[in-house]
């Protein structure tokens, strides 16, 4: 039973990640492969604060959000000057920097050893100490994040984001401050992703840098693209599919070493097939093939 709950909790965490990335990449058209960096900032802020200062879950979350927002401003800067492929490469650079810091600043993060013994989340004196409780907590947050982003993208604000995605020059000529919107979107998207990191750290109670590598970023992007960038239900569906299907592979009876590799091959081929036959994703209006 716990195994099923575990999968549902993971789905909730990934929903937060895909929805926040969708705001940046799907709605605003800024394809970023630094999303795991925001996720990592949230997780490490949570781990370090709750171990060293015994701070509670909500405080950690706020702190992670602030940290991710600062990183968001930094990552947004190249997007003001460079576009498309070049911007993707710049975000790749930021992703590598954040990973290197987590991996090499041993005094702070214990490097590759990771941080064990993160206390479970507690909310108003109530310990979230089993799978059921954590499922409820993570569902609340994934729903809140989903509703937040939905409200935003369906508002006039979201209309400007889509205009920037489709034609920056047009948006600018209509008096929209394109640069300001890009920075805002990275702050918002990054801050939301850090919430996923916070939940993850409190949930698994042990984190190390390998959870926040470029591969994690690519997994989240795959979920967004396969589901359908620029819609909300699409990426959520992508998250469900990419969390559940590899788990299903376990039951086919393959040895775990083969199953792990098969998983990568599976993501890869799914992405290639989608790009070839359905670039807009399962549900979605925007495709990256311009």
């Amino acid at each position, binding site marked *: 039973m716990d195994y099923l709950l575990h999968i549902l909790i993971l789905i909730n965490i990934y929903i937060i990640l895909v929805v926040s990335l969708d705001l940046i990449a799907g709605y605003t058209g800024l394809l970023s492969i630094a999303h795991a960096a925001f996720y990592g900032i949230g997780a490490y802020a949570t781990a370090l604060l709750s171990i060293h200062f015994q701070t509670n879950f909500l405080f950690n979350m706020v702190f992670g959000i602030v940290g991710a927002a600062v990183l968001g401003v930094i990552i947004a800067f190249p997007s003001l000057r460079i576009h498309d492929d070049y911007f993707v490469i710049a975000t790749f650079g930021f992703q590598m920097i954040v990973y290197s810091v987590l991996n090499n600043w041993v005094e702070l993060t214990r490097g590759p050893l990771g941080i064990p013994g993160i206390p479970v989340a507690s909310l108003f004196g109530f310990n979230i100490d089993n799978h059921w409780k954590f499922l409820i907590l993570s569902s609340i947050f994934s729903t809140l994040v989903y509703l*937040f982003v939905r*409200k*935003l993208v369906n*508002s*006039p*604000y*979201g*209309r*400007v984001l*889509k*205009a920037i995605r*489709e*034609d920056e*020059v*047009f*948006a*600018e*000529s*209509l*008096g*929209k*401050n*394109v*640069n300001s919107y890009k920075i*805002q979107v990275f702050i*918002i998207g990054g801050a939301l992703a850090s919430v996923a990191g916070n939940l993850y750290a409190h949930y698994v109670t042990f984190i190390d840098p390998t959870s926040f590598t470029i591969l994690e970023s690519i997994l989240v992007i795959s979920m967004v693209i396969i589901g359908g960038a620029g819609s909300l239900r699409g990426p959520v569906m992508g998250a469900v599919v990419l969390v559940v299907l590899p788990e299903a592979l376990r039951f086919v009876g393959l040895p775990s070493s083969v199953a792990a590799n098969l998983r990568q091959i599976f993501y890869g081929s799914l992405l290639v097939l989608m790009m070839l036959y359905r670039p807009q994703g399962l549900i979605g*209006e925007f495709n990256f093939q311009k």
Partner: protein
Amino acid sequence: MAETILSGKQLRKVFDGVIAVDNVSFAVEEQTITAIIGPNGAGKTTLFNLVTGFIPPEQGEVYLQGRNLNGTPPHEVARLGISRTFQDLRLLRQISVRDNLLLSCPNQIGEVFWHALFSRRVGSEEANNHEEALELLDFVGLRDLTNEPAGNLSYGQQKLLSLACCLATKGKVLLLDEPVAGVHPDMAARILDLMVKLRDQGKTIVFIEHDIEAVKKVAGRVVVMDDGKVIASGSKEEVLAKAEIIEAYLT
């Protein structure tokens, strides 16, 4: 004597050693229609880009009602009252005609993050803008296509829509880059009529055009550019009378 609303002084821009705009000065009076003519590569569109802040000039200044616009980013220029259209027709083709217009409305509180999430005024603002959008669609004659994705419109209709978007921004000065090029003559006549109406309503229009007949029909003043320089300017009658210009222009 009417008041000068927009002027440029000794504007210059060089691209990779090619002088695109060379010491161009101009003055546009309020509530007039000015045509800029000249062969391809004469620097007409570059001049628009210099005025609207999309390209910073290397030298020279642009003034809008006495205010120096140098260093002002394009979105600020648009907010200060200069709206423009583009030669290559920029519109959001996936979204509806109405949504293109709603997007074009200026200073929306719903476009501010905090208000978009929490303000109750966004709904009424959208309703007001919707009304204005419908009025503009009536004005340009696209009311029937309100809900159609902009990409489904004919080329001429898209030109009308981009004019409407330009109007929705409430600019006082409209810079129209080839507003009638490539459209059916009936549609061209319609667009030219609208331009005259807009002038009579108080707008100031500067447009780039290749069709000399269109220029004759609506322009009050004409500026002729060649090789980045202004080679003639003045009232339509004056300029068009100079045979050599017509010749330069036509060849």
